[in-house]
């Protein structure tokens, strides 16, 4: 029993160290942590966009007009459940991506050196389409599209930088438990973009 107590107190102590180091000692570290950027309600309904993708720049954190689709201004594009990256047959950029399984957003901190980035070769996209293949699962009974928990999109941007993206919701205003009454094809996601070209994503 005593042993257990010792272990527990040690654990509590370490935990304390850890949390203080996170919160207070950040300023003394040479590099400031990257900011997580939340994005809400990117409207990706092809019926409302003349069947175009809706483009987004992770570098500048803004939506890009579809007239710039043939440029390297954008990094990711959305149309219904399909997500493209600026490369391959989707765009002129150097973009690529892969779906990282079994990782939470904060836990995924570095793009591994042996990561296999894929480029779009429509209809085979770097981020695979179809329920269970890429970022979402489709529930046949409720007709709800849900992002698969523990899946991230690791993106190489049009300009060859790295970012991680977690899709949070496919419905307007990102309800935690969407129903058939919620408007679909509204992307909410969070991302971290590394501007310095390294693979570090935290």
């Amino acid at each position, binding site marked *: 029993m005593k042993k257990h107590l010792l272990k527990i107190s040690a654990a509590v102590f370490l935990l304390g160290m850890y949390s203080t180091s996170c919160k207070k000692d950040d300023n003394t570290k040479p590099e400031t942590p990257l900011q997580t950027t939340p994005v809400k309600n990117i409207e990706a309904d092809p019926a409302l966009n003349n069947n175009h993708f809706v483009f987004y720049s992770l570098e500048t954190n803004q939506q890009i007009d579809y007239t710039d689709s043939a440029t390297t201004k954008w990094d990711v594009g959305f149309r219904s459940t399909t997500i493209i990256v600026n490369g391959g047959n989707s765009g002129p950029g150097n973009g690529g991506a892969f779906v990282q*399984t*079994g990782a*939470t*957003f904060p836990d995924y901190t570095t793009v591994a050196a042996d990561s296999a980035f894929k480029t779009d070769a*429509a*209809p*085979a996209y770097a981020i695979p*389409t*179809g329920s*269970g*293949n890429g970022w*979402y*699962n489709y*529930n046949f*009974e*409720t007709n709800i599209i*849900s*992002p*698969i*928990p*523990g*899946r991230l999109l690791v993106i190489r941007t049009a300009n060859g930088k790295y970012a991680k993206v*977690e899709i*949070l*919701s496919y419905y307007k205003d*990102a309800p*935690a*438990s969407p129903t058939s009454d919620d408007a679909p094809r509204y992307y*909410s996601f969070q991302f971290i973009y590394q501007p310095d070209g390294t693979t570090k994503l935290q």
Partner: protein
Amino acid sequence: MLKRILLLCSMVSVVFMSEAQTNDTTSNVLDELVVTATRSEKKFGNVAVPVIIINKKTIRQSGSLRLDKILQEQTGLFISNSFGSGVQIQGLSTDYVLILIDGQPLVGRNGGVLDLSRITVNNIEKIEIVEGPSSSLYGSEAMGGVINIITDKSITNNLNASLRYGSFNTSDANIGGSLQLDKFSVFAFANRNGSDGYDFYKNDTGQTVQPYYSYTTQVKLQQQFNNNVKAGVLFRYYYEHQSSLYSAENDVVSGNPSIKEYNINPFVNIRFNNRIRTSFNGYATQYESADKEYLQHNDSLYYEDFFQQRFVRIENQTDINISKENLLTVGGGYTHERLNTNRYSGIRTNSIGYLFAQDEQRIADKLTVIAGLRYDNNEAYQSRLSPKLAIQYHPVNKLRINASYGAGFKAPDYRQLYLNFTNNAAGGYTVYGANEITTEELHRQLGQGSIISITPFGEELQLLKPEYSKGLNIGASYEFSKSFFSKINFFRNDINNLITTEVIAYKSNNAPIYSYFNVNSVLTRGAELQLNYRFNKNLQAEAGYQYLITADKEVLDEIKEGKMFGKQEGSLESVKLTRSDYGGLNGRSKNMANLKLFYDNEKWFATLRGIYRSRWGVTDKDGNLILNRDDEYADGYVLLNTSAGYNCKNGFKLMAGIDNLLNYRDKAWLQQQPGISFYGTVQYSINYKNKK
């Protein structure tokens, strides 16, 4: 009150005098006969595999009309309700339970479910339920167990009629009788069942359960030629009609779906001598469902479905008493199936030849060992060998220890073999049954350009294997006294090669093409406890409990490897799941229990039956497609049913009952449960003693 009932009795009485039917109060649970477990008559106490017997008296007194209602009151059986009422045994889904009527299989499944509400219980003598894999005797589908419905036999000259009326305008009328003429006997039965249904949501078009009616007729003829030869034929016909009404495309759709089912079963039983007897069974059945639904505003056809399944079988079984202690059963048969439906690209057939053998050796009245093996060979999928071993040890008079290990399998269903379906309404995806597409064909289409890519699954298309299971049951029964019987059983079932759909290729319009593969595996394990206690001559109690754990093994592996995530209610953040978060397969309750009280004397009977079921998984809310959150469950519930009856001396019996006394309703997940309902029944029977 009593006076009134007596008055009612005399009012409806006719001049016929009749004898009260012999009271079939069970002398002893252990002495009841079971045929399904070994394909030969055995005393319940001597059967080494877990068995449930429901006798006629229980069925009658419980006031059940259809098979699903009486099964739901039994320990370890759970009635599921999509595509009709199916039954789960030991947590194995309804696809894996074989349903027999007088030993012959029923066909006509929809979405894998054989709707048990098709079966009236008014002509049932006894229901035998064998739990655990029984494919060594019965072949495909007998993976979770076998339910054998044994219908009434012609024993005496009698005539029975009954009429029941209850809530929701539900009526059930029955007439049946049997006749013994020297060596010839005939039994005939007819049932009409109908209801107005009920509605949970008044504002939408149509009802939750639409009005329906059905007819069942059955005739059995039998001739005893001499002491050693008996032959006969059984006919059954079923017709069901249910109107449909719902709104679609800003219009109202209506139709009249119907089901017709025919069964015919000629047989010859020959006893060569005291040691050898053999039986030949022929069987033909056809199940046909048809549905045409029309848009109301212009009478145009909105939906059409036609499904016809024929199943023909010849079978022989021979029993050889090698010695007093050794019984050998051998048999074989041939089945031919034919399917005609607008869901597939044409008529499909399949044939199966099979052989089985089983040997039962008793050793010094203490030990019984049963070993069995069956081989199924067919055209459309891989053949299958199903072994079984069962042991009963009977060390002292009151204690019996049972252990059995068996294999079960389920053949790929016709949908998985032959579906050829393109959904133009939903993006043009196509689903092929495994026998409708080959890798070569995909490559040919790739060359033509109609397909633009083939997935790794598409490169490995192959013949489907049957889904198969291995089941272990270990249990014991103990008779504390003549009036107190207990039974416990632990089980584990592993099902492999579960068939799922995968993308095999993409069309030039990007739409996926799917086909079927043997991929998943699941397990179910748990324990069942049954207690029967007789307080006195009149009052008896039965209690049952099942504890059940189920899991998809791939999910368990992913949890173990830390690769399975979920989201908490109200949160969009992914969190890692642990084993305790995982609730197993949908549609299973961890705890199920029942408590039943039966009182009867010569004049009266009364029953009170309670069923409890803990919460069960129904849906996925956080995108991981597994059961891990409280809001992914439907609430647990208690159902309380009661009934009482009075026997008039003149052959009339009166009965009344209340189902779902607590008026439990769950509009979302328990639509088959209408809430509290009442009924009253009048039954009349005449029996003549045989002259002999």
